């Protein structure tokens, strides 16, 4: 085939240009660390990467929700624990007071301590978390849960659940169930014990108040058990969530990140090819009939 001069040089230019483009592409890969940066470079992988990144974002939000849930449940657990301690102390006092060998003065002392415990119950009922929200108020988190006027306990909350999204589409109630009932039950029982203590009704103290306190102790333990289970579940979900995030990140990396060894090899190949093209052109261009004519 005849090779015209223009065609010859055009071919040189085109080859050098093509090898240069290859070299540049290999460089870009090494600089960005990504095997593709545009959807057009790999449409199928792009879909998977975008989808995986969205799942990672969602899982990270779930992670934050789980941390918030756990903090809240811990406050619940602490309050319940204090209630248990208080209930046990009250039982001890009632057992002591039920004994008819007590003097009225002794019984008065016990009643006074029971009054202190009763007031503490209200305080427990008004526990606040680190952000100042009342944990017994249900959804009325900024409203003080209990006010004890002159001997009557008023509940200002609504006892409604607080839902948190702990898994995609899944909710958990992180508020205490029946907060009014828990506190009021103990409050009323203590009031009863105080009255019976002052009235010297040892038998009633033993039959009703002690039994009542024991019943309350069991109820509180039940709620503590439930709360403990919730905390365990949240911890487990957190673990699983973190594993899921790791998995997804690995997926994205597999799809998008280059293998450094492979990239370096490709770069060296491109460099060699470019160098070869340059050398070939330099040699080829030097040959001309004019050099040989006298």
């Amino acid at each position, binding site marked *: 085939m005849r090779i015209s001069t223009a065609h010859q040089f055009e071919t040189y230019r085109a080859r050098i240009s093509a090898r240069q483009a290859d070299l540049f592409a290999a460089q870009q890969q090494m600089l960005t660390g990504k095997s593709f940066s545009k959807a*057009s470079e790999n449409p199928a992988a792009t*879909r998977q990467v975008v989808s995986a990144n969205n799942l990672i974002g*969602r899982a990270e939000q779930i992670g934050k929700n789980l941390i918030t849930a756990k903090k809240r449940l811990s406050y619940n657990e602490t309050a319940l624990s204090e209630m248990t301690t208080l209930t046990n102390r009250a039982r001890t006092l009632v057992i002591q007071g039920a004994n008819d060998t007590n003097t009225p003065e002794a019984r008065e002392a016990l009643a006074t301590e029971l009054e202190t415990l009763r007031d503490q119950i209200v305080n427990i009922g008004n526990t606040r978390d680190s952000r100042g929200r009342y944990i017994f108020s249900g959804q009325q*988190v900024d409203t003080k849960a209990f006010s004890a006027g002159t001997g009557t306990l008023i509940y200002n909350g609504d006892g409604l659940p607080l839902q948190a999204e702990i898994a995609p589409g899944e909710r958990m109630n992180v508020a205490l169930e029946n907060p009014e009932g828990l506190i009021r039950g103990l409050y009323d029982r203590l009031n009863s014990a105080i009255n019976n203590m002052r009235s010297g009704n040892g038998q009633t103290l033993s039959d009703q108040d002690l039994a009542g306190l024991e019943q309350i102790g069991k109820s509180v333990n039940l709620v503590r058990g439930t709360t403990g289970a919730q905390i365990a579940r949240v911890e487990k979900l957190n673990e699983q969530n973190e594993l899921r995030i790791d998995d997804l990140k690995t997926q994205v990396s597999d799809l998008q990140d280059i293998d450094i060894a492979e990239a370096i090899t490709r770069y060296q190949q491109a460099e060699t090819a470019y160098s070869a093209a340059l050398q070939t052109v330099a040699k080829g261009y030097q040959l001309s009939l004019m050099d040989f004519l006298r």
Partner: protein
Amino acid sequence: MPGPFQGIGTVSTALRAFQRGLDVVGHNIANVNTPGYTRQITTFRTAAPTDLYTASGIAALGNGVRIDSIISARDLVLEGQAGANAGAYGRSAAYTAALTQIEGVYGEPSANGIAAALGAFFDAWSGLGSNPSEPANRLQVRNAAETLTSRIRTAYSEMDRISEHVSASATEVIERVDLLAKEVAKLNLEIARFSTSTNRPNDLIDQRTLMLQEMSSLVGANWREQKDGTVTVYAGGAILVEGQSSRPLPSTIDASAGTLTDGVITIPIRSGQLAGHMDALAQMQGQQQMLNELANSLRADINGVHQTGINALGQTGIHIFDESSTGAEGFRLSDQVLANADAIAAGVSGSAGDGGLALSISDRRDQALAALGGKGFESFFQNAIVRLGSEVSHQQTTSEALLAVGQQIESQRQSIGGVSLDEEMTDMMRLQRSYQAAARALTVFDEVTEDLLGIIR
């Protein structure tokens, strides 16, 4: 009957002919870099003989050499192929260039893209719903919504900007084609004047061919050569050049139909850069429509749920997205939410700890919507991105293939009509030697004539 100066005459034809031959070689060398130039070849033939009376009858005595013609080495079939390919490649290349820009508007996959903003938006609602009394979570929702609206608005206006540039390029193409048509008509006139059955004005034809190839690459024009040497040029079935008159293209572009119209005639343009620009404009119209659908669906759906809630200021019926504007262009947060993040409602009861509404909004991300073709927000957008990416990839491959074909055709054209300096050098040596021989012969004839004249002293 040959005269005494027959020999001198014969040899001097050689001198003249070979000198012209060298001129043609010189012309070729001078035009080695001229685009569209096809090398010219001098053909020689013998001059008409003179009668010579011999003992056995009349013989023909040669009279030397004449230049038969100067022809250019062009291949009309290859020229036609080159034109067709130029049109196809022009379309693909122009479309691909625009597609690369269009793809760049979204920049996916990216943490700064619309897909990520969509995800973050719904994530923020999940956070608010799980802890509605935390003020930072309201701010997170507002920030995420602000980012989402901003990115969608920006993408839409970027499409506008690119469309403007492409439209301007398309108009430039039309103007250029009109100019070329006028030039071709002028050349038609001159070429017709100089053409005979055997000789053609080669340089003018080369120039005209170059213009025709350019018109092909711009609007997919094709041409037919007439007997008088003129060419008739067509585009989309309409005649642009006939003889020495030309007509401008209709100038109103209808990108979605792929036609040009001037109210009187409508011609389809299926080839050339102009077709590529129209493809790009149609693609951008499609992208903007997609963004509109996304924005409108978000606005209607999210606002619809949100307005049933009571926000931290005790108000109800508040919108997240501004309802006084439509589409992606006007997609923004409502004034109330912009002014105060507490305008965002987390629940329907108004209680500080009620996050049910926010959780419902978060759940909307998985809802299939009829307005989005039965898809959810995230998958709707992901599909659009992947479709665009596939289109770009496909066009790039097509473009590369057409370029390779074009280079092949050009290579063949060059093989036939391109100037090779080495070859011209060789021809030059041949003609130079021939000229030397003829000149040497002339001195001999001169001496012979001198001898002849010397007899009559």
